[in-house]
């Protein structure tokens, strides 16, 4: 018996092994096929290009990062409000003025809401605007060079948060204050906030040709917090909508004190009306002090101009220009659908999503159905302007974007999800979890008249276990969902730079063909540019030494310099003579109290070196430029103070 049993058992085990093996194979291949399907959707083969650009704010990094979608690959971090030693932004002499403010040089900011310029309500890919939240500023990035070319400071503002959104022909980029403050700033008791502090909503005009920014007017509003904003579009073009909280006008413990009112407001501003008023001489010019910093692509240098006056408008001066729409519970995001009819107030402490109707708002205004006023600004009845409510879609609604099929997508911070709902019927269609605690979301063109509704990017506040751990501080995260079908599908997680507050996206074709490859040497108007090695020189002026140097694969000219003395201020003005795509050179000097320079073909940049010790000190190229990159180096001889070493410079004297 035992003898028979043994082989039977063996066969049994054998069979079991086979079946279980088979089973596991099946389940493996199933999940493998699924995973493969998702992977294919985000796979961009080596050498191929992504379909969309995504410009993702860096939050407390102060910068703007450029990603490709659907791959989630990072292409560039554009320095905006923070110094960046990699690119010498804010370190070289040319870009230091870009970070100038009325408070002096401010080398950091909190960059929040990028928005791409629009023409006729469609994203046009010319510029990205982004706000500096802390020391109020608006920056403009030129999408031919992917460089910050203009920064304007916003006076009378503090916590520049309901910014920097553009109207549908980029007539204005708008910057609303989060904190209300005394206007003008003055020494006064904080507890006298109520009624005395004001909130400035700033309309910055954008020149349609060169994009030059100029403050057209500031609307001086009641002392609420102005949280977010979006322009009207289509039928509501000419209006701008701002969410407010702290309509209680509390100045302490806002966590409690600013959550007392059942409803705060969305402020609807008819900017066309105010523009007309201002164009006819309306408004008051008041003293101010703010920096306007402009970078010129031909001088490769920035200039900072302090402006001393700003035009302010009191809403009471322009009847019919501003109304308040009651909106439940501290609304955060303020989003307008592609038709311009619906204004979504994402009441972050509310269980429901409130959607206002632009048409109903106009009716109520026409019929003068007001519920009262706040500091002379008419308040409309909630019921009169309400288009509908998305009932209990989730917890903690923050932001809404739109696709091109009449759907809206709202993030819910507390319940950590994106919810898709139908505009007009207000029914919830789908929901997908976010990992974790999503803030903003972005659909390319999703805040314009023409969304490209293929993907939504969710930007999350908390990452926890999603990636390999990196100590207490972990990266923040974005998640990509396919929204082309009825149900959303999570495709990809990718890490981000700093905290991604918002993003702007558009099809790559709008931008990539216009992307500049080199700076034309002929057009270089930098005062210390050298256009050939024949022009290189070293000039002493007192204890200042100007070195006009060139670089090309793979040498500096000059590369031997003598006659510099301890205590001199030595300016290296370095021109990259290359005229070929993707051949930058770098330069760094031992002991220089600044960063390297990274110089693009045809460009001139300058760093300051103040030698403190005598000796012979080397400099070298920091960007691997050719097979002879390691040979790209030079020396400066530093003599003692008062020595008679002759000022001399040379290149290759021994070469025969």
């Amino acid at each position, binding site marked *: 018996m035992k003898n028979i049993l043994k082989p039977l058992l063996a066969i049994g085990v054998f069979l079991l092994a086979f079946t279980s093996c088979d089973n596991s194979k099946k389940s493996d291949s199933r999940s493998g096929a699924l995973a493969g399907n998702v992977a294919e959707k985000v796979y961009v083969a080596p050498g191929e290009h992504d379909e969309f650009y995504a410009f993702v704010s860096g939050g407390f990094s102060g910068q703007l990062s450029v990603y490709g979608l659907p791959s989630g690959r990072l292409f560039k971090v554009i320095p905006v409000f923070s110094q960046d030693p990699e690119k010498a932004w804010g370190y070289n002499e040319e870009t230091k003025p870009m970070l100038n403010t009325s408070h002096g040089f401010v080398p950091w900011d909190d960059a929040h809401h990028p928005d791409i310029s629009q023409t006729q309500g469609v994203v046009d890919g010319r510029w990205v605007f982004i706000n500096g939240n802390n020391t109020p500023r608006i920056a403009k990035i030129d999408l031919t060079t992917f460089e910050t070319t203009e920064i304007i400071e916003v006076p009378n503002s503090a916590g520049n948060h309901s910014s920097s959104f553009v109207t549908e022909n980029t007539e204005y980029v708008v910057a609303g204050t989060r904190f209300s403050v005394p206007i003008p700033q003055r020494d006064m008791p904080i507890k006298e906030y109520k009624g005395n502090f004001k909130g400035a909503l700033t309309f910055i005009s954008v020149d349609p040709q060169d994009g030059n920014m100029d403050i057209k007017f500031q609307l001086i509003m009641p002392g609420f917090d102005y949280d977010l904003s979006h322009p009207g579009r289509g039928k509501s073009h000419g209006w701008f909508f701002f969410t407010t909280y702290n309509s209680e006008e509390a100045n302490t413990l806002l966590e409690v004190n600013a959550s007392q009112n059942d409803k705060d407001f969305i402020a609807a501003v008819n900017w066309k009306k105010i523009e007309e008023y201002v164009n006819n001489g309306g408004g008051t010019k008041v003293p101010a002090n703010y920096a306007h910093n402009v970078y010129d692509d031909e001088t490769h240098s920035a200039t900072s101009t302090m402006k001393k006056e700003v035009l302010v408008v009191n809403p009471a001066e322009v009847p019919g220009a501003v109304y308040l729409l009651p909106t439940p519970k501290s609304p955060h995001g303020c989003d307008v659908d592609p038709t311009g009819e619906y204004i979504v107030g994402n009441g972050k402490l509310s269980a429901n999503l409130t959607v206002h109707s632009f048409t109903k708002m106009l009716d109520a205004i026409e019929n003068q159905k007001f519920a009262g006023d706040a500091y002379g600004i008419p308040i409309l009845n909630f019921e009169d302007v309400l288009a509908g409510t998305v009932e209990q879609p989730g917890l903690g609604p923050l932001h809404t974007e739109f696709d091109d099929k009449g759907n809206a997508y709202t993030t819910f911070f507390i319940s950590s999800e994106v919810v898709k709902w139908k505009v007009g019927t207000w029914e919830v269609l789908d929901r997908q979890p976010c990992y974790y605690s999503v803030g903003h979301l972005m659909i390319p063109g999703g805040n314009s008249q023409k969304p490209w509704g293929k993907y939504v990017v969710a930007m999350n506040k908390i990452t926890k276990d999603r990636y390999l751990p990196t100590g207490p501080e972990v990266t923040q995260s974005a998640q990509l969902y396919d929204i082309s079908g009825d149900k959303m599908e999570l495709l990809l997680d990718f890490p981000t730079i700093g905290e991604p507050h918002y993003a702007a996206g558009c099809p790559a074709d709008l931008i990539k063909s216009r992307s500049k490859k080199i700076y034309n040497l002929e057009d270089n108007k930098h005062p210390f540019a050298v256009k050939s090695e024949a022009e290189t020189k070293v000039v002493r002026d007192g204890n200042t030494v100007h070195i006009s140097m060139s670089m*090309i694969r*793979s040498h500096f000219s000059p590369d031997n310099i003598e006659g510099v003395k301890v205590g001199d201020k030595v300016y290296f003005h370095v021109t990259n003579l290359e005229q070929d795509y993707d*051949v930058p050179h770098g330069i760094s000097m031992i002991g220089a109290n600044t960063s390297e320079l990274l110089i693009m073909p045809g460009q001139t940049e300058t760093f300051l070196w103040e030698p403190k010790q005598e000796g012979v000190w080397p400099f070298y190229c920091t960007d691997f430029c*050719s097979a002879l990159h390691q040979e790209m180096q030079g020396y400066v001889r530093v003599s003692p103070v008062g020595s008679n070493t002759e000022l001399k410079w040379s290149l290759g004297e021994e070469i025969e």
Partner: protein
Amino acid sequence: MKTTLKLLTVLLVLLFISCGGKEEKKEPFDYGKKPTTSEKPVEKKVESKDLASQRVDLTNKGIGPITSIVLGEEIDQAMVVHGSDVYKKMCMACHRPDKKFIGPAPKGVLERRTPEWVMNMILNPEEMVQKDPLAKDLLVEFNGSPMANQNLTEEEARAVLEYFRTLK
């Protein structure tokens, strides 16, 4: 103990030998130096004939946009002025007109190269150094210093070529 002593002795002797007899040397060392002309004149001659920069090839047109150039009978002086100007701005950083610098001197280049080859080398250097046998050898001869593409227009490259005709 005995072994240690022996070893020490050997080391000491070695030290003495290596110390002796090289006091009047000027260069700290001469390992790997290219032989000077005085040392091996015959070899040098052979070598220079083999150099890509000295090689004469008046059939190779190179690889690039230029397939056929007809040089005028007379040198076009207006074009020479323009070409010389472009050359000063775009080429001088690596090419001295009449002596070897980072790259070879253009002096007499049309006695060694076809005009098409010269223009293709200016206009299409990346592909030339990868595929053209002469350009490949030149890259080696000049220490791997790549010929930079300075993005000249065809018209500018043609003017530079005309300027080269004056360098004899």
